[in-house]
């Protein structure tokens, strides 16, 4: 009974809370309003996708959550503290658009990089490398160098690197942007399984409507100039999602709503 209530409370606990968030970049051509009045709550275990036209502030918002960018107005908390405090507690793994693997380290040692920095023991490092390599289906590739792997495999290795340490938030900025459709479908499927197994909270930036709808429990539609949130869609799809769910009426309906949201953002210009 008691356990029941705590997990209930846990499930609805806000991991990220943004209130009236503003971010203005001072540039040579004058200030650029990258984020304006952004309000968003991300709960524990959510899979949140950010979708919107280029320049609408998706990357910027992800970077604000990761304390790589300072908001110029409003408030944001991550795990109930400031993003920078959360960063210092190593609360998130960040996956950039490019894999960013070190060419002088093989895959296993690339994955060990955060573990070395965070002071894990040698034995623990090896154990975790094997675990995450298996998680992203790269077992046996630990000894290979990045240039010996395909783009998709490199991207999976960089996801493995972000999963290797105990961060309960995973932030991903167009991780599959450069990959072809088939590989992407496969990685999406894997990512969902991984999310189900690890119960992480995921923030995921994409330009693809089907990808956003397929993956997410919550879809954040954004629009540019100034960057703001125009719609937040809670997905009614079940947590268990085979690839062919994309042909179901519910799926098509959500995709339609996302597309409408994107179009509304565009017609503002």
């Amino acid at each position, binding site marked *: 009974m008691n356990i029941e209530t705590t997990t209930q409370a846990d499930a609805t606990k806000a991991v990220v809370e943004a209130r009236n968030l503003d971010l203005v970049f001072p540039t040579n051509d004058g200030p650029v309003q990258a984020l304006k009045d952004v309000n968003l709550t991300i709960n524990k275990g959510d899979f949140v996708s950010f979708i919107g036209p280029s320049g609408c502030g998706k990357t910027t918002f992800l970077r604000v959550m990761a304390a*790589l960018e300072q908001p110029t107005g409003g408030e944001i908390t991550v795990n109930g503290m400031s993003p920078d405090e959360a*960063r210092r507690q190593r609360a998130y793994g*960040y996956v*950039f658009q490019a894999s*960013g693997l*070190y060419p*002088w380290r093989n895959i296993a040692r690339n994955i060990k990089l955060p573990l*070395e920095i965070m002071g894990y023991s040698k034995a623990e490092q090896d154990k975790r490398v094997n675990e995450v390599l298996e998680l992203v289906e790269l077992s046996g590739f630990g000894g290979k160098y990045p240039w010996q792997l395909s783009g998709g495999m490199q991207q999976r290795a960089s996801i493995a690197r972000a999963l290797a*340490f105990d961060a309960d938030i995973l932030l991903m900025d167009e991780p599959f942007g450069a990959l072809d459709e088939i590989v992407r479908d496969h990685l999406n499927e894997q990512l969902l399984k991984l999310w189900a197994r690890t119960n992480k909270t995921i923030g995921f930036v994409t330009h693809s409507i089907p990808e956003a709808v397929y993956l997410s429990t919550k879809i954040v539609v954004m629009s540019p100039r100034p960057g703001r949130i125009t719609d937040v869609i809670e997905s009614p799809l079940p947590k268990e999602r085979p690839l062919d769910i994309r042909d179901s009426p519910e799926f098509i309906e959500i995709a339609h709503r996302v597309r409408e949201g994107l179009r509304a953002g565009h017609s503002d210009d």
Partner: protein
Amino acid sequence: MKTLIAVLTVLSVIIAFWYAACLPMNIKGVLTEAERAGAEVTPAGAKERRDLGEFGLVLDNSFAIPATWAQDRPRLPAPHQVAQELWKTTGAMVLKGKMMSKRSLFYHGWVTLSATLLGFAIGTGLGILLAVGIVHSRVMDMSVMPWAIVSQTIPIIALAPMIIVVLYSIGVQGILPKAIISAYLSFFPVVVGMVKGLRSPDGMQLDLLRTYNASTNQGFWKLRLPASMPYLFASLKIGIAASLVGAIVGELPTGAVAGLGARLLGGSYYGQTVQIWSALFAAAILAACLVALLGLIERSVLKRMGMGA
């Protein structure tokens, strides 16, 4: 195979030009000697020939052509003369078991090489330290870099005697002054290359370390330093050649009796052009070997780091 043919073609063109250049360069000297020995020379008399064009003289006295490649003290020695001298002062000495005699280029080469290597080590160490400082401290970036650049605008040939005099007055002599001049020339490419290399990681890679909350130290050892390796080796190759030049220049003002610089100087005192040229070639060959050796080390290091494609 194709490249070999191309290389050989270029080489033979250079050698042909060299032989051809010996004709006008040496013809006047040859004709004077020939006349003294009683040969028919047109026109007769060194005075008459002084203002005439060299090419005309060659054409009018074609009998003297072979002699332009065989003079004792030619203005421009022919390739085979230099090669013979090189052999005489290297291989032949080794065969005679006198590899380290005072007349062997191995002896002189080693004297210069030891100063070069010491200077290179000092210069490289200093260069890397300065680069690390410059990358990590804005103050050092603004205060050290301009001086490093200014230091390289002073001609070394003007500076070398002063360095030697100043060091001599505080009792430092021998290999050290040469090594310091050598270090003076070699630290600069290392600073420039290492600064560039240490700054080569892009914003994304630095951001990644930030998300791990990595310290500056960790960022240096795990990211900046390995990323700078290819840049370091490119600089080292320039640096070692500069070191050799520095060591040779360091031998000139002291009137040193040993070293490749001393051979150059001695040769010019006594008009021994063949000796000068063979010392020049010895220096060039030494430089090429050093650069090639660094290239080998570079390849094996980068390969072991997984960066050798």
